[in-house]
């Protein structure tokens, strides 16, 4: 059956509506949960990882770059927020702007890393995140960052407000992914990922596309880091630059399936759900189970859960 432009347009509209509904359901669901379930921090962590996995999806799913040091932007956001709030005594929302700014500045500084391929990029970005951590946590900078002694932001502590801000960030991130999945720009990013030379031959500016995706991805992590700092209000640099933030986000993303909207959502809900249930009950075997899961996943389901459907030709939102 030939496929015509009008059919394509109708299909696109249906997809956008469906995707947006899924995004809305997740955001509203997480909002309602706060009224139902009282362990707010667990819910908050869910929101954090939902947003981070999607933020990572923007750069990995759509361009194929996997930054192991994704936590660097998260940490930059957390400290961007904390520094302006501590030193300038501004309201939290100004702090959020600073969080976004800090992550973007770091992303711009790290732009040259995009020249590297695959594993080199992954490792270099991890080294970059570590380097930022070493700088932030250095006692020589105690007057500015509090060095290794940690940050306390009790002035702006506001659990409810910060929770809903995190939800808003999640909503924005999900809409961003919906847009990428259904827009020409998102398509061009996938084209770059599939074959950057061909993409250039389709008139796509490879450098521009990658740069925008990189900045968007960093922006998400920075905002999430900022709202994390706000919500938790007392933390050490080890917390803000904890490598397991990167690792969890990556595993969730890969488990569900990158480039889709549902994949990372499934990954977080299933794996982080298991983590919180089993992790609490039988912790000593959890790390092992998690490690084994990763190994099996890479070997037997490298494109994630959604590939069970997509490999049968079924489109997953």
């Amino acid at each position, binding site marked *: 059956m030939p496929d015509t432009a009008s059919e394509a347009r109708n299909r696109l509209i249906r997809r956008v509506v469906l995707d947006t509904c899924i995004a809305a359901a997740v955001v509203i669901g997480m909002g309602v949960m706060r009224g139902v379930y009282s362990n707010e921090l667990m819910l908050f962590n869910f929101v954090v990882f939902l947003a981070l996995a999607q933020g990572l999806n923007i750069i990995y799913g759509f361009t194929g770059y996997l930054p192991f040091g994704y936590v660097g932007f998260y940490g930059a956001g957390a400290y961007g927020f904390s520094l302006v709030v501590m030193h300038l005594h501004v309201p939290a929302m100004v702090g959020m702007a600073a969080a976004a700014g800090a992550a973007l500045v770091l992303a711009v500084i790290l732009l040259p890393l995009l020249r590297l391929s695959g594993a080199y990029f992954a490792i*270099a970005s991890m080294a970059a995140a570590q380097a930022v951590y070493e700088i932030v946590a250095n006692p020589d900078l105690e007057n500015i960052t509090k060095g290794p002694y940690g940050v306390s932001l009790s002035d702006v502590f506001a659990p409810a407000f910060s929770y809903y801000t995190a939800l808003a960030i999640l909503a924005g991130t999900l809409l961003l992914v919906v847009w990428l999945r259904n827009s020409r720009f998102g398509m061009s990013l996938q084209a770059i990922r599939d074959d950057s030379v061909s993409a250039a031959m389709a008139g796509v500016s490879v450098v521009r596309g990658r740069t925008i995706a990189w900045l968007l991805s960093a922006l998400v992590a920075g905002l999430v880091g900022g709202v994390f700092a706000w919500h938790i209000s007392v933390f050490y640099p080890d917390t803000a630059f904890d490598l397991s933030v990167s690792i969890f986000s990556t595993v969730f993303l890969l488990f569900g399936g990158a480039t889709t909207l549902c994949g990372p959502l499934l990954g977080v809900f299933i794996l982080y759900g298991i983590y919180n249930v089993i992790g609490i009950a039988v912790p000593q075997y959890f790390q092992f189970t998690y490690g084994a899961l990763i190994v099996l996943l890479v070997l037997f389901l490298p494109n994630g859960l959604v590939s069970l459907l997509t490999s049968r030709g079924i489109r997953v939102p």
Partner: protein
Amino acid sequence: MLTGAIVAGVVFGLYYTLVGLGLNLVFGVMRIVNLAHGDFLMLGGIAAWWLFSSFGLHPLVSALLVIVVFVLVGLPVYYLVVPRLLRSRDSEMLSLILFFGLSQMIEAVTTIGLGATERSLPPRLLGVGPMILLGTRLPKAWIFSAAASGIAVLLVYLYLYRTRLGTLTRAVMVSRDEALATGIDVNFVSAVAFGISIALAGVAGVFAPFILGSITPNMGVAINITAFAVIVVGTLGNPLGTLLGGIIYGVSLMLMQTYLSSWANLLPNLLLIAVLLVRPEGILGRKVRRA
């Protein structure tokens, strides 16, 4: 202070050559990054500790035993995981994730079995007190470890350039596909290289208590970052370049400790990024940049 730092750096760096050597061999032959390398190193250290505390075995004897056992462990690990991994679309990237998973498993098993406390071997086993090298006082254990590293580099060189299997290994390093096409048993060659790599990590682990103070189940990640920095600086995929990488790392670390000590941990990270950006092919190597 300057000469002291440089001399100590060279000797210390030689140990890091041993740490990175196996990682680089695996990358060269299989184009995969073994993020569990540091954990195999940790297991080597645990093995030496166990052999000493249970049977009173001297670490130098343990080192030989570790080589044999770890090669034998490496072979099945290779066959279980790597061939399937190499068939995937982006094996280089997926290897990072897969071996990270393996690293988590090893750390978990070790923690469950042995607890999280520090373990070490008595320093006297490798001789107490300093040795004077070019006017610099260095621990005897450092000299031993550097010597072991030197021997390891020599043996790897002899293996690669003086044995038939080594020649085949180099052929696989140049092009896996062409080697396959010429009828080389690529999997066997790679499995041996993997086994050797694990054994090298194990030997580095045996000396770790003397260089790094102690062994803990969670030490792997930090070792990996440093080892990766060392092999990137010294040219990825070229095991002998690791010699240079280790020495550069060791000397710059000691200089940092001398003149800017609290910033010393920045070093491997900055070195890694700088080399990747300025000369991604490493000091000796070929291009790896994306078009």
